[in-house]
C-alpha cells in the first residue's frame, strides 16, 4: 500500500516537472501569437488580415481592467506575447520588471504616431511601449432629456437627477471625480480629503442609477439614465446612434488615458509580437480600429488616410469632442496615477459607500 502511494507521488512529480520544463524557445519563426487585450478593443478584421498576410495565428484573450491584466502577469508566466496596458499600469509593470524592452528598429511604423503621443512621461523614449489608442472619461449628457446646459461634475448632485445618473464602476474614476469636485487632486492619498470625498460620494448615491464600466452607453441609449460618466469611445458610439447625446469636458477636469502595446517579460513569441505591433501601427490597418472602436487614434498617418478613404467617418471623428478634443478641452484633463499603499484606503471607501455606510 505504502509503495503504491510513493509510486503515485513520483508519477505526479514526474508529470509536474515535465509540464514545467517544456517551454524551450524555438529558434525558428513563430507561427502563433497570444494577444491579451481589453474586451471590445481590437477589430477581428484586423486580426484576420494579419493572419492572412503573415501566416501567424492570433489567439485573442480579453480583460476588463488594468488590474486584471496585472494580476495575470504577476501570477507568473502567462504565455502572452502582446498586452495593452494603460499609462499608470505601465509605471507599475516597469517597477515590477514585467515588461520586455522593445527593439524599435523592428517597429519602423512608429513614425506614423503623432509626436504628441510619443516619449510620454510613463515611458520616456518608448523603451517598453508604443501607443495603441487614447481617450478620456468625461461627462456625457442626453440633451433630449436634460434641457439646461451641463458644464460641471457638480451638476450631477442636483436633486432633479435622482436615479438618472450612470457612473463607471471604477473606484479610481468615480472617487477621483468626487475629489476633483471638492477641489482636490484626483490622485490624492490624504486620508482627510478622502474621508470628505466619501461623504460627498454618499450624497451622490441617491442620484446614481447604476455603475457600469463595460457598457455604460446601454442604459443611456435606453433612456434609463440622462447623464453621467463614460469612456469617450462609448460616447462616440452612443452619439452616432442618438445625436442628442453629447460629450462634455467638465470644469473640474476629467481623466485622460493612453493605452499602449507592450510585450510582457518572458513572452514565448517575441518575433511575432514585434511583427504584430508594427502591423497595427500601419496606417491602413489602424483605420480599422477607428472604424470599429471610435476612441482617439494617435496614428497621424492613419487619420490622413481616413480623410481620403472615408471622408464621412473622418468628418464625424474630427467634429466630435469625444474623439477629437480641442486643446482647450485637453487642458482640463489629467491622467490617473498609481497611488501605491493608498489603494487599500480607496477600496475601503468604495466598499463602504456601496455597502451603504
Amino acid at each position: 500500500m505504502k509503495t503504491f502511494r510513493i509510486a503515485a507521488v513520483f508519477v505526479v512529480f514526474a508529470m509536474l516537472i515535465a509540464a514545467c520544463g517544456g517551454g524551450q524557445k524555438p529558434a525558428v519563426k513563430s507561427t502563433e501569437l497570444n494577444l491579451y487585450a481589453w474586451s471590445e478593443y481590437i477589430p477581428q478584421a484586423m486580426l484576420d488580415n494579419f493572419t492572412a498576410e503573415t501566416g501567424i495565428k492570433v489567439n485573442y484573450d480579453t480583460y476588463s481592467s488594468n488590474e486584471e491584466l496585472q494580476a495575470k502577469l504577476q501570477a507568473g508566466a502567462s504565455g502572452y506575447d502582446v498586452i495593452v496596458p494603460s499609462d499608470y499600469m505601465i509605471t507599475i509593470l516597469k517597477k515590477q520588471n514585467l515588461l520586455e524592452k522593445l527593439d524599435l528598429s523592428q517597429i519602423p511604423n512608429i513614425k506614423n504616431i503623432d509626436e504628441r503621443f510619443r516619449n510620454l512621461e510613463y515611458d520616456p523614449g518608448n523603451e517598453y511601449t508604443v501607443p495603441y489608442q487614447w481617450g478620456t472619461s468625461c461627462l456625457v449628457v442626453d440633451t433630449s432629456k436634460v434641457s439646461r446646459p451641463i458644464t460641471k461634475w457638480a451638476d450631477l448632485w442636483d436633486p432633479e437627477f435622482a436615479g438618472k445618473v450612470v457612473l463607471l464602476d471604477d473606484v479610481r474614476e468615480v472617487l477621483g471625480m468626487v475629489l476633483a469636485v471638492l477641489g482636490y487632486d484626483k490622485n490624492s492619498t490624504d486620508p482627510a480629503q478622502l474621508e470628505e470625498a466619501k461623504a460627498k460620494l454618499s450624497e451622490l448615491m441617491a442620484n446614481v442609477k447604476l455603475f457600469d464600466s463595460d457598457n455604460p452607453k446601454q442604459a443611456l441609449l435606453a433612456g434609463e439614465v440622462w447623464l453621467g460618466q463614460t469612456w469617450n469611445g462609448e460616447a462616440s458610439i452612443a452619439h452616432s446612434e442618438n445625436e442628442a447625446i453629447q460629450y462634455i469636458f467638465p470644469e473640474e477636469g476629467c481623466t485622460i488615458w493612453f493605452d499602449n502595446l507592450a510585450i510582457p517579460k518572458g513572452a514565448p513569441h517575441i518575433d511575432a509580437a514585434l511583427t504584430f505591433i508594427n502591423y497595427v501601427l500601419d496606417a491602413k490597418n489602424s483605420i480599422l480600429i477607428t472604424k470599429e472602436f471610435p476612441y482617439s487614434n494617435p496614428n497621424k498617418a492613419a487619420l490622413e488616410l481616413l480623410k481620403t478613404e472615408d471622408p464621412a467617418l473622418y468628418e464625424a471623428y474630427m467634429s466630435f469632442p469625444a474623439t477629437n478634443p480641442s486643446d482647450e478641452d485637453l487642458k482640463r484633463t489629467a491622467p490617473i496615477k498609481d497611488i501605491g499603499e493608498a489603494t487599500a484606503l480607496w477600496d475601503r471607501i468604495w466598499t463602504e459607500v456601496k455597502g451603504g455606510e
Partner: protein
Amino acid sequence: MAAETSSVSPAPRFSLIRQLRESPHAQGLALISPTLIYLLFTLVLPLLLVVVLSFMTRGPYGNIIYRVNLGNYTRLMDTLYLRILGYSLLTAALTTVGTILIGYPLAYYIARTPPRQRSVYLFLILVPFWTNFIIRIYAWIMILRTEGLLNSFLLKIGFIQAPLDILYTPTAVLIGMVYEFLPFMVLPLYTSLEKIEPAQLEAAADLGARPFMAFLRVTLPLSLPGMIAGSILVFIPAMGMFVVPDLMGGAKTILVGNLIRNQFLTARDWPFGAAASMLLLILTLIFTLFYTRRAGFGEELLV
C-alpha cells in the same frame, strides 16, 4: 549470498504489481487515480494556495509580501465586512425561499403529470440553460427596464399609471437570482415528489384526512429531503454570486462575492481576498454540515 540478493531485490517491484492484482483496495485506488490527480491539481493545490495567501500581506504594487500574519482575518471582523456578509446571507436566504415558493408548485405539477409529459417538462426547464448566462441576464434587463416590456405591458392594460422602477434595485437582483437558481431547486424537489406513492395519499384519505391535511402531513414531510438538497444547491452558489448584483443591481450594493472579486481585480489585495474567500468557504461548510447532519445526504443531491 548471490542467490539471496537475487531473490530479494525483485520483490519490491513485484509486490507493487502483486498488490495491484490481489488487493481490491489498491485496484480501487488505481482506478480512481486519474480523478484523484485531477482533484489534487484543480482543487487541493489551489485551495492550499488560497489558505497560505490569506496569511500574507499586500505589497505597495499589489504584489504579495511573504510575511505570515493574521491581519487579514482581524480586518474581516470589522462591522463593514460583517454587514456585507450579513446582507449576502440575507440575499441568499431570500433567493432560496423564492426558489422554493416558485419551484414547489412547479415540481409538484410535473411529478403528477403522465410520465411521458414529465420528461418534456423537465427538458423545458433545462433548455434556457443552454444559452449563455449573461445573455439571459441582458434579456431580463430588457424586460425590467423603465421603458421595457413589463412596464409597457402593465401601462397598456392600465394596471399601473407610472412605470415601475424595478431595474437596478435589490428587487431586480432577487428576480435574477431566483430565475438563475430555479432548476437547482425544481430538480431535487421533483425527484422527491415523484417517489411518493399515490397509495400513501389514498391511505391518508381513507383515514379521514382532507386533501390539504394529507399534503401537510404526508407529501410535505416526504418531499423534505428534496427541499433540503435543493436549498443547499441554491444557497451556496447564491452566497458567492456577483454577476447578477453587478448587472441587474447596477453594481450599487456589495455582496461578499463582489468583495472578493474586487480584492483580486481592482484593489489588488490578494491576501485579503483570499481571507474573505476562506471565510465564505468556512461559512458554507458549516451550513452544509448542519443541514446534512439533520437530514442526511439524500440521492436528491445526485440528480
